[in-house]
């Protein structure tokens, strides 16, 4: 497996929405490389005909009747919001960029 470069860490950080500082990029590049190197052993089983387990329980969709039930009030739902306006979450601009 390829080593993890500083550029790759910067790319991952963008994907993960983390505005990492320069020194963090260097630090994480080394550490992630070490960790990936250590855990890559799982690929030893990759060629085996083993079905993957994604969850310990056999999951099925759990449905309930579509009836209105009590829930949080708008005030409660907004109580932790960094910014709000007219009973809505107020967010920074999402349109109008390049």
């Amino acid at each position, binding site marked *: *497996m390829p080593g993890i470069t500083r550029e790759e860490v910067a790319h991952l950080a963008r994907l993960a*929405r983390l505005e990492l500082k320069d020194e963090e990029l260097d630090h994480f590049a080394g550490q992630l490389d070490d960790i990936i190197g250590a855990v890559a052993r799982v690929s030893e089983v*990759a060629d085996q005909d083993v079905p*993957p387990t994604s969850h310990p329980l056999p999951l099925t969709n759990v449905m309930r009747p579509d009836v209105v039930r009590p829930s949080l009030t708008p005030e409660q739902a907004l109580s932790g919001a960094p910014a709000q306006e007219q009973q809505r979450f107020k967010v*920074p601009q999402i349109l109008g960029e390049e």
Partner: protein
Amino acid sequence: MADLIKLTAAEIAAKIAAGEVTAVEVTEAHLARIEAVDEKVHAFLHVDREGALAQARAVDAKRERGEKLGPLAGVPLALKDIFTTEGIPTTVGSKILEGWIPPYDATLTKRLKAADVVILGKTNMDEFAMGSSTENSAYGPTGNPWDLTRIPGGSGGGSSAALAAYEAPLAIGTDTGGSIRQPAAVTGTVGVKPTYGAVSRYGMVAFSSSLDQGGPCARTVLDAALLHEVIAGHDELDSTSIDAPVPPVVEAARNGDVKGMRIGVVKEFSGEHYQAGVMQRFNESVELLRELGAEIVEISCPSFDLGLSAYYLIAPSECSSNLARFDAMRYGLRVGDDGTRSAEDVTALTREAGFGPEVKRRVMLGTYALSSGYYDAYYGSAQKVRTLITRDFEKAFEQVDVLVSPTTPTTAFPIGERADDPMAMYLADLCTIPTNLAGNAAMSLPCGLAPEDGLPVGLQIIAPAMADDRLYKVGAAVEAAFTARWGHPLLEEAPSL
């Protein structure tokens, strides 16, 4: 009232029910203890003095009216800061949720309140439950009451330290890779990871959803069982909650016995990473089980060697997805919103400022493992390992009733020792992780002090899914035999704070 803090939860509940002591007196004794020692231990992030006293007064009033009290009515409890508590701050040990006050209670919180358990406050933890030492808390580390310069385990170090420091007789933890059992082992207390799906995850801040499991922490096996029965059971708000009766864990804890049981010793849980004193106490525990009438069988689970690797791909992958909710839009911190930046930039700046290094490391690791081109080699392979580990357990449980191992490879290490070496830190969960991957149940309880450093060693008992009662049956027998041998509970050997 100093002796009130040394009582077990069962004893406290009995005294309150009999009118020998009031819930308010018990709560005040524990609040006084917290005031006296928590500056040194730092087990709590938030103490809800008024709320706890109000709950205690309600219990006393109920008793005076002659109403029926629950089995743990009036008993104080320390709640890991990962469960939402209406009106009480919930930070998950993180900066990004600093000061957040949830508008609702987790199902577990609701059940504790309904059972008249007195919630003293919220305990310190590794940020978002990522860690094995409680050093990753954004609010500073917790000390191990056995030696304040050492880690109390993680991520639930605050909960276990609160028990070992006699700040609370009961606590709640969550276990994703060992975060209930590993802290229990290094603090000389009892911790149980119930079968996956046995305790509702609704209102428990998600880290790795297919592994996370809340469970009881206590100073005795019976106390853990009493708490287990209060918090376990089906919850329609959690789609992964098991809809089946809770195994009779209290009955099992009251009738500890291993006669005629077949107990497996996992061959793979030994070797270069294991401290000599830990192995010595573990081997003595196996000898004790034999003396108590169990048949000991050596069991090989070859895929367990890959458990740690699989875990450090699966847990970060799920965490990178779960933590996407911390986007600075609906709750928590918001940084850099000066009117010129886009929502995406504000999210990135907020996450940079609000997440600590371990969380960032795992988010990046998960993003990498799930990325196109690496998915099959890493995440996909890790999920295959999960199948192999589950098969190892299934084969083992065809031959034996429970498995035993050391809970951790070493005793509590000094704070800071492994901070810059993630792989060394990850080894702390070597023996606990396979159980999270397979979803079965496990317990850690004290089995002595390592001769070389005088620190507690944990014995891990592992049972099949939905056979949690076997943990308590075996655990109670071991606890009784060891307590008789030592002449007192192990915790009495801890230095006074």
